[in-house]
Each structure stands twice: as C-alpha cells, then as structure tokens.
C-alpha cells in the first residue's frame, strides 16, 4: 500500500528540520494531491532517484543538492503560490509541473520573475511555443509525439507493402493534450496522404464509447489514433473488442503507456502501440540500470513518467554545476548551453520552428507484445520488430 499520512508528515518535518549548511536547493512544484496525483507520485520517484545519484557523485561541485517539493493540489492557484515562495526564497531554479493548465501560468509567472523553469511533465506545445528564455523542456511535446506516431505508421507501411494503410480514425478527449495531439495528427495525416475517416472528441468522464466506436466501424479505418486520459483507455479497449472494431494499427496515447494498462485489459491489450519518451528496453546506455533503480524506488513497475522526473533533475543539476547557483541569469545561460547524455535521452535545447528551449528528444513507440511494453520504433533504438498488422478480434 501507499505511504500513509505519517510518512508524509515525517518527510515534511525532516525537510523543515534540515540544517542550513552550504547546499544547493531546488524547488519542485508537483501534483501530489488532486486529479493528477497518479502522475505526481511517479515524477517524485524519478526525482528522488536522480537526487540520490547526484549526491552520491559529489552533489553540486561538492555541495549537497536538496529538493523542496511543494504540492500544487493539481490546480494553478496553489502552484503559483508555491512558485512565489520559491522565487522569494532565492532558489536557483524551479522544476514543475504536470498539467498544462498549471504549467502554463507557472511558466508565465516565473518568466516575469526571471526564475529558470525546467518543465517536469507538461507536454503541450504551448509551453515552449512561443515559450520564453526562462523555460526549458527536455521532454517531448505534441508535435514530436504526433510526428513519432506518423513516422511509425509510414514505417509499417513500408515494412509490409501488401498491407495498405490509408485511412485513419481519430478519437480523443477534449483536454489540452489530447486536443493538441489530435490537431497535430490531422495536419500530419493530410501532409502524408492519409485519409481521416473518423474524427470524434469526447468529454472527460465519458465511460461509454460504443456510439463512437460503432461509427468508426462503419468507416472501417486502417489506423486507429486514440488519445485518451489516463483512465479511459481501459474502457475504450474493452468496448472496441465488444463492438468488434478492427484496425490494422491501434495506437492509444497516455493510458496504454501505463504499466497497469496491460494488467487491466489483459489479452486485448496485445498489439496496441503507444508513444513514450523513454522505455526500459530502449537502446540507450544505462537505460536498463536506470530501470532497475526506478523500479526499486517505486516498489512497482516504473513508466516513462519516472524517467522524465529523473531527467528534469539531471538537467537541472548539470546546469547548476556549470553555473553560479546564486545567479539565476548564469543558471539560465548554463541551461541554454546544456549538452548532456543521460540514460533517458540526450539533452540539447534548441529554438527552431517557433519553439524555444525545446529539447528535440526522440519519442519511442512501444507495442504491447506478450503482456509487456516493448520498444519497436525507431528501428535503431528498438528491442523488437513491431507485430504488424494487428489481427482482427475474431482471429485472436
């Protein structure tokens, strides 16, 4: 079971009681309660693993690194209060948060306060496009992820030329992330010659997808491009099987990437593809070892969210080593000059195509094969070949 109140209390008290010796303190704004708590827990695990590693390797030029994590209750108003306390406390930089509705106001505020922000979880394009000189994102965004999906579809098309992939049906939640990923997907579909034969949005909280799935069944799409919230992928997949909606490729973003997806959907999860920023079997040096450590810390199967938490702190620590932690300007310059390789990805912030300080990270496509998430694309990083095409439900 999870950490009880007592543990949380103890953690807070130990934070308050820490002696004021020479140390470098980084402020973290993370969603530990409220709607995004599922992600907040995962990010915290990743941050802690990175923190231990950094301090075991001499901290920030000999000074220990400390993290002060403040909960934002999954709402902007609390995140801004936390940001104000960090800004006035003189932390060299802030890491935060998950939802774009929180990270957006946070980025605006910290830019005006001239405090560097390393984005923790928010992937919406709008955070770094147009962005600001003070906001840095090492993880992916909607454009990168949508590109990855369509590169994957192209790759499959070339892999088996006898399996035509021409039509796409899109189903997405009406939140910021699903909407922007769908918008980007529609753009890419027309650019690369796919025909969009279904385009349906739903409100968060909808639990019956049969009307939409039945509509799609009539359109008989080759590819299903689904962007769900964390929880709905389970219901969507079960109902897809129930109404007998077949497709040659089934991609479900967000929920299919969670380790619990396989366990909850069972065999029906097979062949489903999903984009992530990191996976345990990706061919990066140290990825396997990081996986073991994340797993030990999480006490369960880690996902790419933990890795992103780890990445954010690694990036921050690297910049702090090269800067004067007392000067936010120098920290910002150091962040802008980042050029590191981590087990999660390489980081090198770029400002192109309207983006600012966005790391051009490579998104990975995972496919669920034999009840496990397997990296299948891009080919040079993949652990296995994709299983293609997805068999019809009746043939499984």
């Amino acid at each position, binding site marked *: 079971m999870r*950490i*009880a109140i007592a543990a949380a209390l103890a953690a807070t008290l130990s934070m308050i009681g820490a002696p004021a010796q020479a140390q470098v303190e980084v402020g973290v704004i993370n969603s530990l309660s409220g709607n995004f708590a599922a992600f907040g827990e995962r990010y915290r695990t990743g941050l802690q693993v990175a923190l231990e590693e950094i301090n075991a390797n001499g901290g920030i030029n000999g000074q220990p690194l400390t993290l002060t994590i403040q909960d934002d209750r999954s709402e902007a108003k609390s995140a801004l209060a936390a940001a104000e306390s960090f800004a006035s406390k003189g932390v060299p930089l802030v890491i935060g948060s998950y939802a774009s509705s929180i990270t957006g106001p946070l980025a605006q505020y910290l830019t005006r306060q001239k405090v560097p922000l390393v984005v923790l979880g928010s992937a919406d394009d709008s955070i770094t496009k147009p962005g600001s000189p003070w906001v840095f994102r090492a993880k992916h965004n909607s454009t990168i992820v949508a590109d990855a999906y369509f590169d994957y579809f192209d790759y499959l098309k070339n892999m088996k030329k006898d399996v035509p992939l021409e039509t796409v049906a899109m189903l997405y939640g009406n939140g910021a992330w699903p909407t922007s990923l769908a918008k980007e997907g529609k753009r890419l579909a027309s650019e690369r010659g796919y025909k969009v034969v279904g385009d349906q949005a739903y409100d968060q909280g909808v639990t019956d997808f049969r009307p939409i799935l039945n509509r799609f069944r009539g359109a008989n799409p080759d590819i299903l491009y689904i962007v769900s919230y964390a*929880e709905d992928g389970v219901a969507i997949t079960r109902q897809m099987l129930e109404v*007998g909606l077949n497709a040659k490729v089934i991609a479900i973003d967000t929920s299919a990437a969670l380790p619990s997806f396989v366990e*909850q959907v069972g065999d029906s999860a097979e062949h489903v593809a999903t984009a992530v920023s990191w996976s345990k079997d990706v061919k990066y040096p140290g990825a396997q070892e990081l996986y073991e450590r994340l797993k030990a810390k999480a006490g369960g199967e880690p996902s790419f969210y933990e890795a992103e938490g780890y990445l954010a702190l690694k990036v921050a620590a690297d910049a702090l080593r090269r800067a004067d932690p007392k000067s936010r300007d120098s920290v910002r310059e150091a962040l802008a000059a980042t050029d590191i390789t981590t087990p999660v990805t390489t980081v090198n912030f770029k400002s192109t195509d309207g983006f600012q300080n966005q790391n051009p990270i490579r998104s990975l496509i995972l496919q669920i094969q034999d009840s496990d998430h397997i990296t299948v694309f891009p080919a040079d990083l993949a652990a296995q070949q994709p299983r293609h095409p997805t068999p019809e439900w009746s043939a499984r």
Partner: protein
Amino acid sequence: MAGLDIFLQNVANGVLIGGVYALIGIGLTLVFGVMRTINFAHGDFVVLGMYSAVLFNALLGWDPYLSLLLAMPIGFFAGVIVERFILSRVIDAPPESALLATLGISLIIGNTILLTFGGEPRSVQVSYASSTLSIAGVNVSMVLLLAGIATVIMIGALYTLLNRTEVGRAIRGTAENRLGAELVGIDTRRIHSIVFGLGVMLAVMAGVTLIPLLFATPTNTGAVFTLKAFVVTVLGGLGNVGAAIAGGILLGVVEVLGASYFMSEYREAYGLIAFLLILLFRPEGLFGRTVKRV
C-alpha cells in the same frame, strides 16, 4: 449493417447504459426523497464500491459479483454510521449544511482512497468484460446486461420494501411529511439512518457491478457519477424510486443517440439539455406525481 440495424443497436446500447445510470441514480433519489439532502458524496460511494471490488479481487481473487455479498452490507453499515454521526446532526440546520457535509465526506472518501491505493486508475479484469450476446442481430454487452439485471432486481426489491413492509411504510411516511410521521410514532431518525444506509448500499452495488467495464480513480470519477445521478434523479422525479429507472434509460438513450448521430463531443450536453427541459416543464419529473414544488 443497414441504417435500421445500427439504429436498433444504438437504442439497445442506450437502454443498457441507461440501466447503469438508473442504478447509480436510485440511491440518490431515495436519499433525496426522504432526507431532502443533495448528496454530493453519492458518486464517491460508487467509487468506494469499485475499490471494494478491486480490493476483494486482489486479496481473495473474487469476481466482482461475488464481492457484492460483502460489499453491500458493508456499504449499508457505512451509510448508517455516516448518517448517525454526521448527517443527523445537521438535519435541522439550514439545508445547505447537509450539502456541505456531503461535500466534506466526498473529499474525505476520495483522498483516503488516494492515500491507500494511489492515484493510478484501477479496474478488475474479468473474462466476460467484452463478451457480447447476440439477440436478433443486436449485440448486447454481457457486463451491461448483468448490470441491467441487477438494476431490475434491486428496484424490485426496493419496491417491495417500500410498499409491502412496515419499514417501507415508515420511510414513505417520513418522505411525505416528517413531522406528521413523528406524530404517529415513527422514529424518523432511525428511518433516516436506514434510508442513507440503503442509499450508500445501492451506490456501492452500482460501483461493484460497473468495475468489470470501467475503471476507478480516487478523485476524478466520483464527481462524474454524482452528476449523472443528479440528472437521472431529476429526469425521473426527485424522490420517485421507480421512475429512476425510466429517467436513467431516457438519459442513456438521449446520450447514445446524440453521440451517434450528432457531435459526440457534446454528448454530456444532450443529457443536460433534456434535464433542463424536464426541470422547466415538469419539475416533478417525467413520472413524478404533480405535487407542489419543493
């Protein structure tokens, strides 16, 4: 598939989804009818039911329907306890106090679940999760069918309880006129406890029967169910248990047909518009008796 076949399929789905909505709604209707309290924690009790099924499944490997045996009585007693220690103390205060109390309870339930189970969505994987039954060319989801049967049984049992037993008579008396009921010797405090217990039991039952199909999250899912329960309740008629089933089915059909033939992103709105229309033209509900407005 021809247009008519698809239409029939959609209607069938709407009716079945409506059965689920009805199941979520009956408990709220009952509680509102008797206690005049808008229970904001209703959806959280549904979620609690889901997590109880998850827990029994993880610990004992039970099928959700088997765990009903334990979950329902536990739900009933939880409801009685909540009523005794919290709601009974505010029943004579301004009506909004009870509403606030249920809001507090809702926060407490959601966040206690968050602290024990974590925020990750949970579900129970059963072999019949996606099974269908084909009746005259129309595919019917096994899980929804089972939930529908459970709804019918439950409403039958509730109907019998209300109309054929002494307790039921007392409940109806309390709903009609609490003071009058007290004058004829009914212990309305006890009745309130029983009613709230039944309300929670029904919510828990709804949660358990839904878990094979859906998923539970600690803090997001509850509000969705509460809202659905409100809509069902008003559509059928606040306080009218039998009509909740009709309200639920109406909501299900309106939503499914709306989402099938119009813009699916407005799915929730179709139900809400129906809800508003009913409120405006027949505030006593579609099937309620014409009584004076509360």
